[in-house]
């Protein structure tokens, strides 16, 4: 590995707006009267409910068990009573099943797991089982079950573990604060994951715009044989495939996974959750989320329990001082627009972002002028302009031929397009239609 990371092809440089929250320490959000824990928080199969209405639960008790291998269990964010198993607005705008818990105010821990203090000599399979039992998912935003990545199938060897601390998404500073304030846990988490994978070392990739976090991590990294790799600032540096290329020079082929190039990537927040689960015996029931945006009175970083309504999170941040025009879960590039304040914080909610009315420009989509800027910035090397035309004309077979499935939905093309074409939305649609067709064929 060279000291100088490679620059992946393409990418954009949106205004990062991180100054709003990057110096705000993580605060614990106060206990609420009730939580609505969304059932299906992970990619893969939804978990299966194990509690019923009226049950009393302690903090960290199992609410739902994994519904398959690519699925994770769900735990109670506080002690209390199950008030209802009902519907709650979901992050995609469709109501989803959720477990409503009325807190009893005691916030008393159950006894979920025994801490494994001596993880250095523990059996890797025991550690991996713990990661699964604790319900840990990729906390960078995707929500992919962590244990699945740590279980490479027979014949696939892993030689590099990368911890993703790039946090290239504008506005978000949750991972930055975690790396500053919980540097020891981040590095220790890297070492635990490395042990599960049978590796000696790990690399933590951090964008250069977080020099304090890099310095902090470097100080501790040596203790666990972990290295810290500063990365150039370029969106989407934190995308898995781009990160692997920057650090190892390996390209993940289209349709393949990082494990096909012998890499595993985990988010830094997931690493901290793994330390909590292994060393302290605590399941994944909270996460650090950035609440930010120009209209927010007091933006900052909070540790929210899963099931905290967005409305309460915004109240905590002092409310708004201007009419917001848009609410996003995640950052401005890949975040999902919300239609309800009733959506609750999930394990993969990295940010809650409000955009003011005067920051939003209502563009009209114009015809493509064939300038090719989208092709220049596409980090996956596909042809956004052509693919968008294929999707617009419902030529999904053509879109598939043009590798729309390789699109990581980073939004760089939509960001750069001078005709303001909703390219990213076309690709999302195309991918969904192609997947539906594939399912039909099966």
């Amino acid at each position, binding site marked *: 590995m060279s000291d100088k990371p490679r620059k992946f092809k393409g990418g954009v440089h949106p205004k990062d707006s991180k100054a709003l929250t990057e110096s705000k320490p993580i605060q614990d959000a106060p206990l609420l009267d009730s939580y609505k824990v969304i059932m299906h928080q992970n990619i893969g199969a939804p978990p299966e409910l194990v509690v019923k209405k009226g049950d009393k639960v302690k903090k960290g008790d199992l609410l739902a068990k994994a519904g398959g291998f690519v699925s994770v269990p769900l735990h109670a964010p506080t002690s209390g009573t199950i008030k209802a198993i009902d519907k709650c607005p979901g992050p995609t*705008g469709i109501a989803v099943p959720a477990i409503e818990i009325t807190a009893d105010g005691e916030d008393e821990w159950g006894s979920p797991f025994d801490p494994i203090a001596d993880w250095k000599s523990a059996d890797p399979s025991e550690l991996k089982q713990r990661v699964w039992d604790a319900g840990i998912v990729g906390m960078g935003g995707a929500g992919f079950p962590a244990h699945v990545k740590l279980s490479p199938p027979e014949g696939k060897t892993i030689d590099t573990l990368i911890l993703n601390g790039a946090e290239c998404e504008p506005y978000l500073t949750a991972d930055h604060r975690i790396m500053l304030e919980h540097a020891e846990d981040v590095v220790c988490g890297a070492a635990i994951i490395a042990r599960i994978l049978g590796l000696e070392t790990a690399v933590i990739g951090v964008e250069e715009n977080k020099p304090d976090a890099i310095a902090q991590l470097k100080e501790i990294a040596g203790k666990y044989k972990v290295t810290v790799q500063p990365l150039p600032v370029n969106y989407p540096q934190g995308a898995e495939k781009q990160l692997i290329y920057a650090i190892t020079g390996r390209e993940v082929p289209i349709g393949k996974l990082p494990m096909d190039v012998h890499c595993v990537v985990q988010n830094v927040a997931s690493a901290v959750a793994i330390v909590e689960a292994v060393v302290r015996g605590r399941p994944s029931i909270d996460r650090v989320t950035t609440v930010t945006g120009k209209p927010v009175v007091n933006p900052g970083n909070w540790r929210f329990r899963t099931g905290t309504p967005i409305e309460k999170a915004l109240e905590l941040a002092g409310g708004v001082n201007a009419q917001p025009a848009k609410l996003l879960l995640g950052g401005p590039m890949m975040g999902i627009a919300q239609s309800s304040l009733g959506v609750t914080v999930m394990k993969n909610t990295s940010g809650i972002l409000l955009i003011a009315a005067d920051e939003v420009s209502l563009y009209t989509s114009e015809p493509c002028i064939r300038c090719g800027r989208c092709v220049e910035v596409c980090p996956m090397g596909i042809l956004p302009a052509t693919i968008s035309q294929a999707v617009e004309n419902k030529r999904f077979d053509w879109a598939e031929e043009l590798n729309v499935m390789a699109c990581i939905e980073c939004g760089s093309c939509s960001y750069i397009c001078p005709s303001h074409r909703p390219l990213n939305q076309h690709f999302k649609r195309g991918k969904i239609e192609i997947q539906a067709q594939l399912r039909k064929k099966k």
Partner: protein
Amino acid sequence: MNVALIAIVSAGALGLVLGVVIGLVAKAFYVEVDERVEGVEERLPGANCGGCGFAGCADFAKAVVDERATPGECPVAAPEDVSNIADYLGIVAEEKEKKVAVVRCAGDCANTVRSLYNGVRDCRSAVLVAGGAKGCDYGCLGFGSCADACPFGAIEIRDGLAVVHPELCVGCENCVAACPKDLIIMVPAAADVHVYCNSSEKGAAKRKVCKTACIACRKCVKASGEEDHMLVDGFLIRTNYENPPPPELVEASACPTTALRQATKHAAGAYEGALK
């Protein structure tokens, strides 16, 4: 002179030889064509809509002749077309009930809460952004994916709402799959009264976002008396298409939100501005 003669004679001889070869080849490779396929195709409506599941009318005609399909499977064909084909083939035609599409939503722009949406003008794309920028999760988005899918121009987009013109609808079902909200169902053409709402939310929640939602007040259920014209399904009333209600029921039940409508009047715009 001589040259011209050679040319004419040689070209003529060549033509003769090739003609004989072509004739022989045509004889040797002759493919038996069932002329009934053409006969059936002539008697089909020829819309090529694909509603039958085959690749157009010619393919369907072939399937009918091969007895892989029955004439009644053509959704566009009128009953007399079907019996016509059956007579032609000498088979017995089964009874076919004509069906039409209904979009189970009455929430146009005037009656529903909507957020500002500036993306792709297509329902299947719009639904990817916060479920479609409409206050109601179940309602019609009104970008016309169904109207685009309709080969007969039977669906009109009026003030952000898809409205079916029952007299133009032939029942090909192309629109059903196009709707990302699963709002379109096929109902017997004889039924004219439908509940134009598909939201299973509680009444108060529905009213907050839509003035024309069915609030399950059951006035229509009571108005139908002993007859089970209307079925209660949680917080929603549905039409019982096994025993469809008469058009008079709409007036008799005086639906407070006008969710209960006559399809023909709805298509004619009779309910627009009915709510203050």
